[in-house]
């Protein structure tokens, strides 16, 4: 199966190519068959490859597909590199991707861009797989740009609405800022180390740089800049809530499970650089901590169902960045995997709810859906429980608990990270169950016409099972000590060492975390089910911060004033295109002489003869004068 590694990213591209050629002429059944089938085959192949890889016990499989760039000592190839880190990622991408493709087969069926949707989705899955399987940074950048492009295409999928195009451009331009930082980091890595191959960088970097040297710290910050753009962290986070303009399967796949985790993958892959640059790593944690709090407060005030989930994604990726920042590499990847399951589940469920309520997005106009759509309700509840990290029974508890523990007890952890994560967990539980109670409980405000089909329900059920049971592969020391997941990643990502004096406190920390999440659920229950007047009273009392949080902490307004207004001002100034005037002048002179000379071509024969005569006179005179 090692030889078939290239098929895993190639199959989605092949699916996209087939749909490009045949899509407009295919029946409504053939299109999802090719679209979902290609990713399904990829998932199957991933499963087989994974089983073989793990049973053989190699640490690494590589496969070179093409020779790409060979110039002097720069040797970059189209090669794939499979180790347990990329195995986890391709497993999540292909499996969750396949479930989302199945969901889209029913969700997008009535849309006239049905084939176009699957083409873009397949292109996205192919690019993301290249991103995580690449063995050198340039190929990763290729995948990075590919997913950015597909994100743009899919956010603006319903292009007839102007605001969708605006949201797509906003996403693309903001991630572009991050991409530029990443490109500069690549340039610096190449000029200092002479290679862009990830494994060579990992071996050469400790030899060339001492810990904390300024060059490697700068590279670390630039890599962080690239990751921040793609993963919607501070300061480039405001594109993600607007990206909810795209269809719900897009939000599930791209803006919850995969593309926004590309930043997490980048930092985890380049952990050698971050270990050499402690300042950059600390800032990874700081950005993660601040972002998770900001996004949590914003999510608490939103009333659009998908925007709550978008802010929740920003917040959860903040947790992953926090984990990376304290050196808990495998905990971050574990949280990524569990988050992918429950967040995709929540987005798919939200999409189903919105579709069945005839595109009603406001949760305060929903209600009482518990009885009308039972499967969707129960799966949504399981996903929300995982998000809120309800103790013991959900996967989210185990992954988030690990991060909480390491943020305090890891050797780079400190009390501030821990407090931020703790408050964040409390707020997460609150906004999650606020969402659940307002949407599914209470009296029905919008009528539901019918229930969803099995192609929508099956992915929801599968993801619900995964959200619950996938957590059990990594149990903390106090609760059974199963270390399947971190053991899996052990060859790739270094273990975290703990501060010795705190190891005994693990159980207390878990109790506090569990208590907070249950407390958050209870407060949401009290506010929105038992005593609704309480909610409106609070809202009117904290009106000013409420609106501030609702607007995403004012980042849109800030960027509008600081970046967009001056830019538009300068472009209006140069509307006449001042520098072009010089060239326009040249053109005017050329035109003038053209008209003058053209007028001598009158077409009248006598004119021409006169010209000949004058010319002859001139020549004869001059020759007589010369003699």
């Amino acid at each position, binding site marked *: 199966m090692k030889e078939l590694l290239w098929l895993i990213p190639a199959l989605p591209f092949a699916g996209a190519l087939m749909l490009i050629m045949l899509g407009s002429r295919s029946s409504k059944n053939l299109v999802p068959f090719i679209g979902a089938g290609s990713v399904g085959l990829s998932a199957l192949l991933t499963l087989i490859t994974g089983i073989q890889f793990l049973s053989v016990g190699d640490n690494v499989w590589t496969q070179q597909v093409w020779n790409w760039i060979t110039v002097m000592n720069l040797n970059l190839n189209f090669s794939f590199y499979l180790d347990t880190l990329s195995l986890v990622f391709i497993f999540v991408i292909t499996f969750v991707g396949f479930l989302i493709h199945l969901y889209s087969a029913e969700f997008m069926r009535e849309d006239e861009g049905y084939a176009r949707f699957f083409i873009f989705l397949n292109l996205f899955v192919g690019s993301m797989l290249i991103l995580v399987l690449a063995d050198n940074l340039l190929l990763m950048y290729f995948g990075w740009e590919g997913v950015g492009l597909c994100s743009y295409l899919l956010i603006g999928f319903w292009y007839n609405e102007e605001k969708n195009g605006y949201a797509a451009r906003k996403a693309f331009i903001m991630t572009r800022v991050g991409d530029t930082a990443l490109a500069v980091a690549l340039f610096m890595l190449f000029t200092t180390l002479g290679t862009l191959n990830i494994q060579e960088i990992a071996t050469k970097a400790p030899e060339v740089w001492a810990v904390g040297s300024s060059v490697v710290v700068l590279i670390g910050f630039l890599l962080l800049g690239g990751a921040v753009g793609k993963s919607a962290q501070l300061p480039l986070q405001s594109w993600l809530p607007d990206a909810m303009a795209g269809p719900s399967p897009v939000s599930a796949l791209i803006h919850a499970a995969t593309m926004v985790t590309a930043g997490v993958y980048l930092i985890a892959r380049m952990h050698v650089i971050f270990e050499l640059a402690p300042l950059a790593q600390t800032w990874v944690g700081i950005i993660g901590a601040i972002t998770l709090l900001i996004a949590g407060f914003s999510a608490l005030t939103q009333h659009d169902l998908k925007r709550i989930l978008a802010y929740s994604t920003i917040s959860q990726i903040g947790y992953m960045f926090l984990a990376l920042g304290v050196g808990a590499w495998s905990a971050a990847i574990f949280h990524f995997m569990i988050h992918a399951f429950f967040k995709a589940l929540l987005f798919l469920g939200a999409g189903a709810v919105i579709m069945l309520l005839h595109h009603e997005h406001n949760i305060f106009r929903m209600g009482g859906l518990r009885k009308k759509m039972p499967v969707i309700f129960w799966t949504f509840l399981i996903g929300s429980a995982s998000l809120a990290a309800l103790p013991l029974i959900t996967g989210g508890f185990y992954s988030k608990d690990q991060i909480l523990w390491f943020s305090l007890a890891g050797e780079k952890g400190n009390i501030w990270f821990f407090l931020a994560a703790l408050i964040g967990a409390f707020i997460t539980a609150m906004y999650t169950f606020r969402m659940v109670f307002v949407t599914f409980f209470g009296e029905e405000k919008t009528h539901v016409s019918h229930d969803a089909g099995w192609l929508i329900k099956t992915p929801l059920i599968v993801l619900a099972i995964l959200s619950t049971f996938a957590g059990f592969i990594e149990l903390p020391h106090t609760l059974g000590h199963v270390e399947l997941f971190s053991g899996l990643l052990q060859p790739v990502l270094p273990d975290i060492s703990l501060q010795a004096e705190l190891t005994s406190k693990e159980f207390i920390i878990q109790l506090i975390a569990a208590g907070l999440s249950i407390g958050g659920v209870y407060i949401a229950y009290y506010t929105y089910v038992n005593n609704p007047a309480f909610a409106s009273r609070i809202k009117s009392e904290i009106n000013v911060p409420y609106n501030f949080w609702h607007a995403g902490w004012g980042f849109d307004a800030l960027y509008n004033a600081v970046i967009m207004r001056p830019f538009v001002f300068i472009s209006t100034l140069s509307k006449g295109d001042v520098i072009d005037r010089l060239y326009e002048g040249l053109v005017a002179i050329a035109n003038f002489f053209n008209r003058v*000379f*053209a*007028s*001598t*071509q*009158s*077409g*009248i*024969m*006598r004119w021409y*003869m*006169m010209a000949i*005569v004058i010319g002859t006179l001139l020549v004869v005179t001059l020759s007589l004068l010369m003699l």
Partner: protein
Amino acid sequence: MKNVPLEAGLILSGILFVLGLISVLTRRNIIFMLISVEIMLNAAGLAFIVAGARWAQADGQIMFIFILTMAAAEVSVGLALILQIYHQLKTLDSDAANKMRG
């Protein structure tokens, strides 16, 4: 007969040439232009005769026969073209054939 000086013949030839040139330039009727071109050709032929007499060789006379023959051929082709122009433009005004302008 008293010898006619050489310069007189050449001057006559030059005057005839210039007369022909001026009338080509000033006439609008195509047929008159053709006639004027004939005058210019004959003027050139006269210059050749005078030159042949100067060097006492028959080459001048032979050249004149060439010129005459060429003139005849040229007139026939020219008249055929003029007939075509008249067929297209229904006029003999040379200024009417001005389509090839810039």
